[in-house]
């Protein structure tokens, strides 16, 4: 039988790597939020796996629940920010936004 934790941990590492890469290279504000979501999904999986290995499933699950709530709120606030920035400045390109002067 194959070793299940190592498969899941490899998937977690891949998700974290993909999210981190997109976070570093992308310049679109919406894509940045998508990258954050992917990154947090990796962390979520790792939390639940850690709880399962330790035999404390419910502790891992309740922490993952907090992570899901926080992640969703981050997405909501980020999207609201993107919508308002787009309305006021006409762009969501991060490089142009950093060049804005008052």
């Amino acid at each position, binding site marked *: 039988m194959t070793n299940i934790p190592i498969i899941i941990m490899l998937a977690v590492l891949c998700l974290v790597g993909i999210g981190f890469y997109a976070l570093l290279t992308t310049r*679109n504000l919406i894509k940045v939020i998508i990258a954050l979501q992917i990154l947090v999904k990796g962390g979520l999986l790792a939390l*639940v796996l850690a709880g399962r290995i330790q035999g404390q499933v419910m*502790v891992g*699950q*309740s922490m993952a629940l907090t992570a899901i709530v926080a992640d969703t709120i981050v997405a909501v606030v980020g999207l*609201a920010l993107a*919508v308002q920035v787009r309305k006021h400045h006409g762009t969501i390109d991060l490089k142009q936004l950093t060049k804005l002067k008052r």
Partner: protein
Amino acid sequence: MINALVAVAMIICAIQAIRVKKLLTSALWLAGCSAMVALMLYLIGAPEIAVIELSVGAGLVTVLFVFAINIIGDEKPVLEPGIPPLVAWALIILSIGILAYLNLPLLSVVIPDLAEIPMASTTIWNDRMLDVILQVLLIFVGVLGVIGLISDSKAKEINQ
């Protein structure tokens, strides 16, 4: 076997979500990735959190993304990355290498069989009360965020 298949599907969805040019397609791939994560959580043996992830991650967040992209409109994609790709790759290889090194003990670990799974509500309400309070606070912040998302520029016009 099925774990490996779900993991591969999850990674393909994640890669597509950041590769695809159109924002709407990207959000839909993210929903697919979320569904695969939920399936994986169920397979590990955490059904409660799998249901929540499926309904919140694949449902609510996708609806919010589609709503926001609808308002913003699909912008022309910018091809050049924010920082040089070489630097990004170096940073990622470094961080993933450290994470992989820290996880080396997992090679000899097998998932133990659980004798009995305790009730979810007992743990959440008795042991992790602080988390619940934090979640309530966060939900209030989220309501403010939704107000910011759906409010149009009427307030600005009144000020002018």
